């Protein structure tokens, strides 16, 4: 590699994180550590009914007996669960504010700085936002308008009060709390997240979106999101995340459950931009996320699209259980790792029903000293007649010090299942850069163009409003000077 290329690459590797500021706000935190008392505290704070508290305590007991999963291609020190705050809320959040006039201006300012205005007139047209700050939901926009259609879009804490029957029925139905330690932990201590219910035959007219912000130091964020699409309904949902720049690691362990009933469709998109740590690998978010969708009814469809650029460690496998006949699961992913970031991400497609179909498109881009692993599990159960899967897994290496790994598992108990798997690993090659530069583009412009081209198949799955943003984010993750 010539010196100019390596210089440019070093420059990319020293990328600066734009969302690393801290909001100076008094917050209420109980003492560090995890025990039954803290769970009761959280439940009490949220004025939860007894069944909810019991569910949490039950999950906590399960967690106590479990060890963290060890199979991922990730290296990080053992997490000390007693050294974390499990709840943090800006002072005065005893009750969720009724409208923005009751919200601390500092919080509104924080979201403005992040490019997420909460005043409805300024909000992106056609996007409703739920803003979650540490452990609480700050504001939810366009709620009234959605209510007219019977759509419920609120924080999960609120849904436990207002729609207990739905929460009771579906919470933990897709991700059993005993699934693994992170799901048990989340179930015990989850603080906030979004709840969505789309009634029968309603097509949600706007994008629903939640914006997660971790602010407080040494605090874990345990997000819990539950989305239910009733028969024949449709919803598109987007999640965004950022955190301040700190030199200690912080834990984010989310659980997201999606349920699509007969003929329903859920499109879930994530732009994950947690603080990735500095160029020496110090600090950053540990992101242990369980996302799972259940295509419960016939002809239902769940589609995951993720753009993963942040976090020091990412452990995340948005999955689909294809139970209804003819149901469809899709997973589109772009994962970019830079500096000392590590990502072990992919998906699980479990074919149970007849004629179920799944599609996996994964694009991994590794820069700096990072390690990027795709891990996929495609399985066909006995009754999954004529089910099919198509997997395409491409890795792009930029530089000589990073790594890309592809680990696909395929398990078929049905002879009529069809599986296709394509994988490629490539490096941005000097000939491509030479060609672009001969046409007058700089090194940086050329790399950004090629990487964006490499990801295009996935980026075009994002809702239009966010595709442009995501494209910019991809460029920023590569570059030091742009933006």
């Amino acid at each position, binding site marked *: 590699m*010539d010196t*100019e290329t390596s210089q440019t690459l070093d420059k990319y590797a020293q990328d600066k994180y734009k969302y690393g500021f801290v909001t100076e706000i008094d917050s209420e935190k109980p003492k560090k550590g995890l025990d039954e008392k803290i769970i009761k505290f959280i439940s009490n704070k949220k004025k939860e009914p007894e069944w909810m508290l019991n569910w949490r305590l039950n999950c906590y007991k399960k967690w106590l007996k479990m060890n963290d999963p060890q199979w991922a291609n990730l290296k990080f020190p053992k997490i000390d669960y007693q050294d974390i705050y499990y709840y943090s809320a800006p002072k005065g959040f005893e009750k969720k504010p009724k409208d923005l006039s009751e919200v601390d201006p500092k919080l509104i300012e924080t979201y403005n700085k992040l490019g997420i205005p909460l005043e409805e007139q300024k909000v992106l047209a056609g996007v409703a936002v739920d803003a979650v700050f540490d452990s609480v939901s700050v504001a939810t926009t366009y709620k009234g308008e959605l209510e007219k259609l019977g759509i419920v879009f609120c924080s999960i804490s609120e849904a436990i009060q207002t729609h207990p029957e739905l929460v009771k029925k579906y919470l933990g139905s897709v991700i059993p709390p005993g699934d693994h330690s992170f799901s048990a932990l989340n179930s015990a201590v989850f603080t906030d997240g979004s709840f969505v219910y789309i009634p029968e035959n309603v097509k949600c007219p706007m994008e629903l979106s939640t914006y997660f912000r971790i602010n407080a130091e040494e605090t874990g964020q345990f997000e819990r999101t539950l989305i239910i699409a009733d028969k024949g309904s449709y919803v598109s949902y987007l999640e965004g995340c950022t955190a301040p720049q700190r030199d200690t690691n912080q834990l984010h362990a989310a659980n997201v459950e999606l349920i699509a009933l007969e003929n329903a469709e859920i499109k879930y998109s994530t732009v994950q931009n947690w603080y990735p740590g500095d160029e020496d690998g110090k600090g950053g978010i540990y992101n242990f996320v369980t996302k799972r969708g259940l295509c419960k009814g016939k002809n239902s469809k769940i589609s995951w699209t993720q753009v993963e650029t942040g976090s020091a460690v990412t452990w995340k496998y948005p999955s689909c259980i294809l139970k209804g006949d003819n149901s469809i699961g899709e997973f589109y992913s772009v994962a970019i790792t830079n500096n000392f970031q590590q990502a072990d991400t992919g998906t699980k497609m479990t074919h149970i029903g007849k004629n179920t179909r799944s599609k996996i498109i994964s694009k991994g881009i590794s820069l700096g000293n990072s390690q990027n692993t795709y891990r996929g599990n495609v399985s066909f159960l006995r009754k999954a007649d004529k089910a099919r899967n198509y997997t395409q897994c491409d890795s792009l290496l930029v530089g000589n010090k990073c790594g890309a790994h592809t680990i696909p598992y395929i398990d078929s108990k049905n002879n009529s299942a069809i599986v296709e798997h394509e994988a490629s690993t490539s490096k941005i*090659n000097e*000939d*491509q850069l*030479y*060609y*672009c*530069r*001969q*046409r*007058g*583009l*700089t*090194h940086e*412009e050329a790399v950004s*163009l*090629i990487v*964006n*081209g*490499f*990801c*295009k*198949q996935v980026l075009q799955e994002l809702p239009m409003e966010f595709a442009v943003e995501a494209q910019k984010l991809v460029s920023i993750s590569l570059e030091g000077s742009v933006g």
Partner: protein
Amino acid sequence: MIFLNINNLNVSIEGKKILNDFNISINEGEVHAIMGPNGCGKSTLANVLAGNEEYEVNSGKVIFKNQDLLDLNIEERAQKGLFLAFQYPVEIPGVNITPFLHASINSKLKNEKKPELDNLSFAKLLRKNAEELGISTDMLKRSINTGFSGGEKKRYEILQMSILNPELTIFDETDSGLDVDALRIVTEGINRFKNPKKSFLIITHYQKLLDYIRPDYVHVMRNGKIVKSGDISLATEIEASGYQNF
């Protein structure tokens, strides 16, 4: 103004000398052809002029538009009006010609301190030039050079040249891999682009290309230097009896 002057240029790659006291002068509006057997250094010359960093320039001087070309990096040379039509244009999957070429032309305009083109005027220009070269809108939607035939790739190079409007175009064996029809389309494109302000350096192995684009000068190159210069009759001589006489 000195348009292009190469003076005693010595170039090597991995210690092996390829250009050996190479000299040539090209004025504005002139068409020069360099012919030579395989391995004589023709393609090296093209790539050294474009700034390819794999080659080591040991000594010599290259003046382009009154400036020392060897001081500039690849993109600066391109922005100054030097265009290389590649022998093997590289595939860039996922990257469409529109944003690619739009960024290219704007970087050149910016360098010339001229107003940049907005999306609409660029799209119009691209469509018009593509049409003249018989490039369909379907083809414009594909990724750059990806899955293109040899002829399509070369036509794409000519399209890029016509948009970027360079003062000096170097054709590196543009005729290689082209059948007669493709060659005709490509050379028609070049001829349409010719005017007294543009200069061309055509690097080729065969005379065929020169039947379509009549050069003002023909040079024969062997062992890293020009051994004979003349007019088009030199090309005919080579076609008849090969390079062994030089």
